């Protein structure tokens, strides 16, 4: 069997590489200011752990392009606006650029920027019984207004505690795009506000979906249920996540930002959050 072709850093001298570099530079929402990492300032084990995190992050960012890619088709089925569909395409491209940014961090930390894992492309949820408008709304809400807002909170949290100037600068670059990815969920709801107001049965259906979706999100992102680990000062400085903070950031974000944000559109998200359940939903 032929070995999987590794995905590495983009070429710079080929025609495609130069075109990519042009696209990438014009899409960056903030410029990088720190270009060198000082490994000597830290425990080598902490640097190695940080490198492992960035390696996983690189693969995750790369894979997540598929979610936005599939979402584009669903927005077109829903006859969403041209601009909202274009922004989703942009966000998909952001994820590819993030893979490159993560790769740069890996190299700076002494590793090799390569994605060797298989990339499994899953179909995006179709939500049997839903019309195209609600199908797209459910997936935008979950992908952006829920999971990407939590991701943004994680980055804000990391920025608030890490101190290494290079990794902080790299994280800031990712954060600047994650803000858009999270906000898109609410921007999209705003675009559909009039339609939602005219279809109360869809708002009720979205609230029923959220009862399950919140429970799944909690399982995936809250950080509750794992073990204990005390991170070192060097690990904290390098931006490694503190397990003790994960649930707090998650619940504060859900209750302080996501739920009230969704309720602005007449979706009973507060009730759905309180009654969240992985079991069958009525």
């Amino acid at each position, binding site marked *: 069997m032929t070995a999987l072709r590794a995905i590495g850093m983009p070429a710079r001298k080929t025609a495609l590489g130069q075109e990519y570099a042009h696209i990438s530079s014009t899409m960056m929402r903030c410029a990088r200011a720190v270009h060198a990492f000082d490994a000597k300032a830290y425990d080598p084990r902490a640097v190695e752990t940080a490198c492992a995190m960035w390696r996983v992050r690189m693969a995750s960012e790369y894979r997540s392009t598929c979610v936005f890619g599939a979402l584009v088709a669903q927005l077109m089925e829903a006859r969403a606006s041209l601009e909202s569909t274009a922004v989703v395409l942009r966000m998909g491209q952001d994820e590819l650029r993030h893979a490159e940014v993560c790769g740069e961090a890996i190299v700076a930390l002494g590793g090799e920027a390569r994605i060797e894992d298989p990339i499994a492309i899953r179909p995006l949820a179709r939500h049997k019984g839903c019309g195209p408008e609600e199908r797209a709304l459910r997936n935008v809400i*979950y992908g952006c207004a829920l999971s990407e807002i939590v991701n943004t909170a994680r980055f804000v949290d990391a920025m608030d505690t890490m101190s290494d100037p290079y990794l902080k600068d790299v994280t800031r670059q990712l954060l600047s795009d994650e803000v858009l990815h999270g*906000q898109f969920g609410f921007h999209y709801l705003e675009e559909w506000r009039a339609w939602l107001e005219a279809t109360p049965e869809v708002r009720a259906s979205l609230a029923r979906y959220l009862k399950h979706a919140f429970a799944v999100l909690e399982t995936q992102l809250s950080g*509750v249920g794992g073990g204990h680990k005390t*991170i070192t000062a060097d690990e904290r400085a390098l931006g490694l996540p503190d397990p003790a903070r994960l649930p*707090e950031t998650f619940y504060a974000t859900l209750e302080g*930002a996501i739920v009230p944000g969704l309720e602005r559109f007449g979706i009973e998200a507060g009730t759905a959050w309180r009654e969240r359940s992985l079991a069958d939903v009525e």
Partner: protein
Amino acid sequence: MAKDRGPHFLRVVQALAFVSGLGPVGIVASVTACSSSGDLGADASADAYTGIPSGVAPVFPDAADAPIYDGQALGLFPYDGQVLGAQDTGLTEDDAGPLDANTDGTLADAAIDSSGPVPIGGPLYPPELPA
């Protein structure tokens, strides 16, 4: 509980509240909380944030040490021309809590694993409702 978490969590939740479109009340509340803890130093006053445009350039000399306010520059806090007084917001650190009862459970392991509980970037695949 909220006080135990300190201003950091107030800043996180207020930043994200802003992202989700709830309005500008988080800015001054965050400044107030930050000032009271002293972690922004002598410049930590509401006046220091007057006139900040949304954009991409860091506007603080030491922005790396003020990430939420750096977040302001990143567009987290789109300045709308009005700085509310802390008294107008009615917010205190207590507004950041309380936490959900589920946080009494065991905390997550910090193992870095794409299939584990630590988020590492990118949207998650939305779930289907159970059949």
